[in-house]
């Protein structure tokens, strides 16, 4: 499959936040300002690409030859937790500038379902190594686009008179619905499964 098609599809036609509903918890709770949305988005792109690059060989080079594929949930979640910890240590030591931006968001990523979901989808769709990495990077960027767009919309909501019970998550879901509707306009411009 063409790498460019995969990249484009993950950005628009098959956006992981708006079509596959992955990473919804931070999508709702951290989308109140554009600045924090940026930080979370960058952290997701970063961790997502690295985990895809590590989880692919773990599955195909260790689990498949040993015929214990059903253990992949446990192994994937351990790699993700370990990687997040490792990335945190490395950025703290060598890239203090990045640490300032990503610092708060990295621990939250372990329980972000987008990261695990991506590894599962990658196995389910039988991507090759390079395809997986492109898919992971594209999905991260797509997720970032979605969260930045919704945080931009939400920051305008301060001036709107929303019913008391609809404030917060309720109205955010309805905005997300309209955004998903807009993203459906890309359908047909190339897609993956």
């Amino acid at each position, binding site marked *: 499959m063409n790498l460019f098609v995969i990249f484009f599809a993950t950005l628009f036609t098959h956006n992981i936040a708006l079509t596959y*509903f992955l*990473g919804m918890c931070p999508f709702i709770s951290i989308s109140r300002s554009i600045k924090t949305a940026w930080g979370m988005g960058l952290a997701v792109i970063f961790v997502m690409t690295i985990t895809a690059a590590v989880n692919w060989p773990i599955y195909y080079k260790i689990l498949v030859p040993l015929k214990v594929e059903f253990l992949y*949930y446990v192994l994937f979640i*351990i790699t993700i937790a370990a990687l997040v910890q490792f990335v945190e240590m490395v950025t703290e030591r060598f890239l203090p500038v990045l640490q300032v931006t990503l610092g708060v968001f990295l621990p939250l990523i*372990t329980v972000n379902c987008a990261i*695990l979901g991506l590894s599962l989808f990658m196995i389910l769709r039988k991507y090759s190594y390079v395809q997986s990495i492109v898919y992971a990077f594209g999905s991260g960027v797509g997720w970032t686009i979605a969260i930045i767009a919704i945080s931009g919309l939400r920051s305008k909501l301060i001036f709107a008179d929303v019913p008391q019970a609809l404030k*917060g998550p309720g109205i955010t879901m309805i905005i997300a*619905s309209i955004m998903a509707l807009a993203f459906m306009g890309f359908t047909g411009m190339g897609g993956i499964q």
Partner: protein
Amino acid sequence: MSNHLEKNSRKNKKKKIKLKFMFMHYNRIFFNTLWNDNPICRMVLGICSALAVTNRLSNAVAMGLGVTFAMVVSSVSISLIRNVVPRRVRMIVYMIVISTAVILVDRYLKAFFPDISEAMGAYVGLIITNCIIMGRAESFASLNKPVDSLIDALGAGCGYTFALLVIAFVRELLGFGSLFNIRVLGPDWTSWVIMIMAPGAFLVLGVFIWIVRSLQKSYDQTA
């Protein structure tokens, strides 16, 4: 003799009161997590799966039961080992416990309900990162006794399943004109295809949260 009887009945009464108290205690835990702190509407946790699998009622039932089972198993196990696990490594221990429970669910579905397992795809695995389970483990099971944790997990699981069923009911009815794959709306009904796609899911969940929060009298402003 009468003295003895009296003593016995008093003892019984005491026991009854104790039982009643126990019942109230568990009741409170159960309904607190089921309605007042409903995972979907109040805490807004675990909505990935709530959105993804609610296009058919049968998927919603499978997901709800799967999450409830995984939550009960992991809550009780975490509560049993809560005094042994050092605080620094607790997260990763919880993760391993939860993912073991999820493997059980996944194997079970694959063996007995292959159609549903196929339809849910990767979302069965995503029960691991369902924040409800981790949230209950961290905020309740790691601090309370196993029986209390069991009740709490059951309450949260039922609340979650209830929310899923309501959303799936609306989506399947409008999107396919059917309930549990049985057509109910007649041949003249034009299916609202948008309801089974992503935008419909967001919209129904948004409106559902709105209605439930209006019904709950004392809500404070969170998030």
